[in-house]
């Protein structure tokens, strides 16, 4: 079934959430769980920064905008992938603002029928307004 998409929802911010302040313990626990040993990510002190993928632990409070096409069954789906563009590193004491937009919505047809992909973009900034990361989350629904 073709997507009944209102293109005006693309690029519109539908959620804004704030987190933090980030602690050194959180940064270190995250890095160590990945087996990371580099002191840049694991040693408490003035040089400590977050692992490059630390930001993916944050997301918006609202999962999707309200006016998604009705043929997308949001109750059934899975995480199909992620694209992460890095800005400045996360540091202890940072507060993180996550702005959510619907970046892309498209359909693909496979052997088993239609699949719908929803890409939600999280733009993450710190308290100085610097970009920490832009994360595109790709979810697949049938």
């Amino acid at each position, binding site marked *: 079934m073709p997507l009944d998409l209102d293109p005006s929802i693309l690029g519109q911010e539908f959620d804004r959430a704030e987190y933090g302040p980030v602690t050194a313990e*959180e940064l270190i*626990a*995250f890095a*160590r*769980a*990945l*087996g*990371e040993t*580099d002191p*840049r*990510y694991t040693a408490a002190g003035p040089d400590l*920064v977050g*692992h*490059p*993928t630390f930001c*993916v*632990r*944050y997301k918006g409070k609202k999962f999707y905008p309200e006016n998604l096409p009705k043929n997308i069954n949001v109750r059934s789906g*899975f*995480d*199909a*992938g*992620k*694209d*992460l*563009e*890095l800005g400045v*590193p996360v540091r202890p004491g940072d507060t993180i603002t996550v702005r959510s937009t619907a970046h892309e919505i498209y359909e693909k047809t496979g052997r088993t029928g239609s699949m719908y992909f929803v890409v939600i973009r999280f733009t993450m900034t710190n308290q100085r307004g610097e970009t920490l990361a832009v994360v*595109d989350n*790709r979810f697949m629904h049938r």
Partner: protein
Amino acid sequence: MPARIRFETVEEGDELPARDLLLEKDQVRAYARAANQWSARFTDDDGARKEGLPGMITPGNMTMGLLATLVEAWAGAGTLRRIGTTFRGLVLPGRVVKLCGTVTQRVESDRTVEVDVWLETDEGERAVIGTATVKFD
């Protein structure tokens, strides 16, 4: 921290040192806790089976993090600029996975390198594939 290799020595086709990793269930749980992804599917076999899964699975975000760590172990901490991954299959803890990468492009003008990365299961399936951009000083 200086890069572990120099841009001048990188060539297209270079392989990153592959890493075999026994993905312990406790490590996956530690990640789920640290990444704010604590849910049955990532922490508990019985809970995951109730969701129709074969047992607890590894979060896709964790596999991306492992691949990011692989790239920076090669190029140096702080060199990763971008990583994109596609989660194609389930990655089950308690098994050995192989983390791999290959240089696909070397861009002289901005001293960046493009890398293909992937995670291979013990059955040889590329369950996670992706690309990464590394920037050298």
